[in-house]
């Protein structure tokens, strides 16, 4: 018997994971769908001052922009992916269930592969599909209004926009990259946290993540600001050198792989 990786054991573990956690998964998807739906509806109806009675008067200035989407997507991404990945190893938090998990005849490599597949990749794919679905639903409805002439005034006030665009059409490569990096990093960090911390793992991971974020962004920024507070910036932002895409991709992939490796070793060395 191969003690490092066995395809049969891996498939059995994957099957067990799905059958045991499908309720949690389907509930999470339903909650995500519902939350996005409500946030879209709320933002369109309230934030953009959508009023049927005022259509003829051309008050729908922001209606065609749907400019709330990035904020909503970022917010739901943070909550959904952190929760989804953060509960993956929750059976390791109680002694009784942790004993069953740790004595299950599978290798640590098989466990971490199932974890990455179900908690990280499945979470991200699910998130993308649900977002695109909710977005498509709302954009289709808005386009129908548009096509039926109910929003003809909109053409005059849309500031050069092309009407209602799907999020997939609107997002630029840079925005997609930011979302992808955030999604993978967040899922991986919370996956590590769920095995690293025994109790209150979600809260502790969130706290650690916030501290880390502060450490790598706010603190250096503040120190730099204090250092240069009496000096005038002469930086030419237009020609400022940026990190090449390839280097950025490699660094990101390395960081995510390192988090997965840390999760693997933590799982391997886990004691109860």
């Amino acid at each position, binding site marked *: *018997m191969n003690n490092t990786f066995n395809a049969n054991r891996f498939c*059995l573990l994957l099957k067990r994971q799905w059958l045991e956690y499908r309720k949690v998964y389907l509930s999470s998807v339903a909650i995500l769908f519902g939350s996005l739906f409500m946030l879209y509806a709320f933002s369109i109806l309230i934030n953009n001052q959508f009023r049927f009675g005022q259509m003829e008067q051309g008050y729908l200035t922001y209606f065609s922009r749907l400019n709330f989407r990035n904020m909503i997507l970022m917010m739901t991404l943070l909550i959904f992916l952190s929760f989804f990945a953060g509960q993956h190893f929750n059976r390791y938090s109680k*002694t009784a269930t942790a*004993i069953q998990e740790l*004595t*299950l*005849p*599978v290798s640590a490599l098989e466990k971490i592969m199932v974890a990455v597949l179900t908690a990280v990749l499945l979470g991200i794919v699910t998130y993308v599909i649900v977002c695109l679905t909710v977005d498509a639903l709302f954009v289709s409805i808005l386009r129908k209004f548009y096509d039926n002439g109910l929003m003809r005034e909109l053409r005059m006030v849309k500031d050069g926009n092309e009407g209602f665009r799907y999020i997939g059409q609107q997002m630029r490569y840079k925005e997609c990259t930011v979302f992808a990096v955030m999604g993978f990093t967040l899922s991986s960090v919370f996956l590590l946290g769920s095995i690293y911390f025994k109790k209150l793992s979600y809260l502790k991971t969130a706290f650690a993540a916030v501290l880390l974020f502060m450490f790598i962004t706010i603190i250096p920024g503040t120190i730099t600001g204090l250092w240069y507070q009496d000096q005038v910036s002469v930086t030419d932002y237009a020609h400022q050198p940026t990190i090449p895409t390839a280097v950025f991709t490699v660094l990101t992939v390395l960081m995510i792989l390192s988090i997965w490796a840390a999760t693997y070793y933590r799982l391997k060395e886990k*004691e109860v």
Partner: protein
Amino acid sequence: MITIQKASYAYRANQTVLEDVNLRFQSGHIYGLLGENGAGKTTLLKSLAGLVFPKSGTIDVLGYQPHRRRPDFLADTFMIPEDVELPDLLIERYVALYACFYPKFDLELFFWLLETFEVPRAARMEQLSFGQRKKVLIAFGLATKTRLILMDEPTNGLDIPSKSQFRKVMASELTEERCFIISTHQVRDLDQLIDQLVILAKQRVLLAASIAEISQSLAFKVIPRAVPEVLYMEETIQGIHAILPNKQQEDTKMDMELFFKGILLAKDQLISLLHTNQTINDEQYI
């Protein structure tokens, strides 16, 4: 089957749970692991299952180092913890999901054991009481046919008829290749079940001997009044329950609870009479 050499465990730097433990367990036996609260029974079981790692010393189980948790080692070992929390599934679904990880799993035996324990096979785990869930896990563990079964307080939560059933099925499932190690502080539950005894006290092995050896050296009697030869005694309504030297080689039934109390309170007198392979202060193996 199992060899532990100079093993020590500590959860924190100055909180030693087990110290300098030397033990050897053989197949074909049911071992009773006794000790007061905090003596290190659960830690010893966990160490055999690879759930805690020794601070020092070596431990060999079925030819493997348990802490490495290799799948083929885990497929031949099963641990039943004191607290049982099973996923909220139908029993049949649970078995379908988990049995496939154990190559020797005997499905017929599992359902027969459930029937013996009077647990409805079509039930959901959530609908079962704590005792019933424990019985499901005991049935599952025995049906895995693993060579080593470790049980931590298995009779906790079981009613009196179930305790009796438990003893019967345990005895019936023991084979020459298998070894059962049962940790408990409910000493009477192991009466007529175990054939080997390991007693832990103050983080060390106080005694490791077979029931036959103990019975050969000591006699357990109810006597009307105290006599000078008594090694340890307890007064009850029926008379004085006493442990005496077995000079006449009488065949008396060992009173496990009395012996356990006696070994803790009158260690030196009792151990000096156990003249065979018993372990004192971990110097020998059983």
